């Protein structure tokens, strides 16, 4: 139903086109300008599990703000590098991490979701991953239970991730918008910021966590697990 290869190629083409006129010539350092990726499904496509209103705000407003602020921070950083201003470079690290992380995390998130009636939302779409999950947690249900419990125990804003580290799978959380960039491969991410569910679920985040399993894109998870999909983390030139 959804061809992610095309989607990613679309990002690449759009970004390269944009980059040709958008590099900073005055600094002698080419910096990438990141752009908001298009969703591979409509804003209401995840209903009734995630409402159109949430998806619209989450993508158009929240994700856009991370992209905008990341680009601003990177530009300021290049200027600081050019000026040899180490203090400013260090001061910008937090903003680059937060906004860059926000951009990476949401880009991963959109692609590991899918309308519930798509075949991608059946765990069968991830045969190798499922085998490894069963090896680690016994059953898929036991994994879901462990993952959900981790999500619900998060204090404050953050994300829950299924990651591949070496050959093994682990569940981890990252706070705020910290991305998974320490060598592990993010297979599946769930946004636990309140903006991801509040308009629909209010304080009932357990229901959000229960329902999100209906719209998990297992095909994407399988590709990330096998390393066969295009890694959005390694894609060049702001293609995420």
């Amino acid at each position, binding site marked *: 139903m959804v061809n992610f290869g095309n989607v990613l190629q679309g990002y690449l083409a759009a970004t390269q086109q944009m980059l040709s006129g958008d590099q900073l010539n005055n600094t002698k350092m080419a910096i990438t300008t990141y752009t908001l990726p298009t969703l591979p499904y409509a804003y209401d496509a995840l209903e009734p599990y995630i409402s159109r209103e949430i998806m619209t*705000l989450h993508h158009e*407003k*929240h994700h856009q*703000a991370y992209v905008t602020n990341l680009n601003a921070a990177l530009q300021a950083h290049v200027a600081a590098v050019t000026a040899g201003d180490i203090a400013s470079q260090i001061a910008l690290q*937090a903003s680059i991490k*937060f906004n860059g992380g926000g951009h990476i995390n949401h880009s991963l998130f959109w692609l590991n979701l899918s309308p519930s009636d798509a075949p991608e939302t059946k765990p069968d779409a991830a045969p190798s991953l499922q085998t490894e999950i069963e090896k680690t947690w016994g059953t898929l249900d036991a994994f879901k239970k462990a993952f959900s419990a981790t999500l619900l125990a998060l*204090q*404050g*804003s*953050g994300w829950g991730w299924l990651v591949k580290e070496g050959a093994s799978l682990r569940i981890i959380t990252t*706070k*705020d*918008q910290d991305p998974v960039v320490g060598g592990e491969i993010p297979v599946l991410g769930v946004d636990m*910021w*309140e*903006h991801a569910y*509040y*308009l629909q679920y*209010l*304080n009932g985040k357990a229901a959000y966590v229960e329902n999100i399993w209906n719209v998990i894109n297992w095909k994407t998870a399988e590709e990330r697990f096998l390393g066969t999909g295009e890694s959005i983390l390694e894609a060049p030139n702001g293609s995420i």
Partner: protein
Amino acid sequence: MSATLMRTAPVLRAAARASGAVKPMAMASTSFVRGKATLPDLSYDYGALEPHISGKIMELHHKKHHQTYVTGLNSALETIGEAESKGDFTKAASVAPLLNFHGGGHLNHSLFWENLAPASRDGGGEPSGSLKKAIGEDFGSFDTLRKQMNTALAGIQGSGWAWLVKDKQSGTLGVVTRANQDPVTGNFVPLLGIDAWEHAYYLQYENRKAEYFEAIWNVVNWKTVASRFDKS
């Protein structure tokens, strides 16, 4: 600190006084049962802060979110009490993050409700008296304080709080932020807290949090803030 917030304090103090006279196990079970935290009542209606904070936000925020911290705090205290009575200090120590989170959540929200008031009553306006003087000395002007608080609030990455605090050592005022539900402790006395968690504004302001940070000044209870300042 606020009377409502500390209404369990006499029981806790009584338990502490009694602790010398009873055996450790009895002390633990008694004091933790008697010292249970409870959800404080608000001194205004849920809709009383409208149009600046909607009644629905206030109701969920108080009845659901704050209640969850109260429940979580009591559960953490119970777990620690049980672990203590068994001499299982590893278990007791492992509960520390939950105690900080839920205890902080209870403390922060209790302070927050009391430093807000309907605009038709004590909410809004500007501080007066000794607090006004101190703000003038330490920030230059009330407007600068407002701007500093709003900048601090906007700069919070994730969930957290911004506070106007008094430094116990120097006696000067300052603005600090805390992540998640970390309470203001140590050298600072919390005078005014503003909740920057998304649940504090999202139903009304959605992603436009700057509008919430502007609006909330209309319902800040400067009487409460001044009384915290004068007592500290």
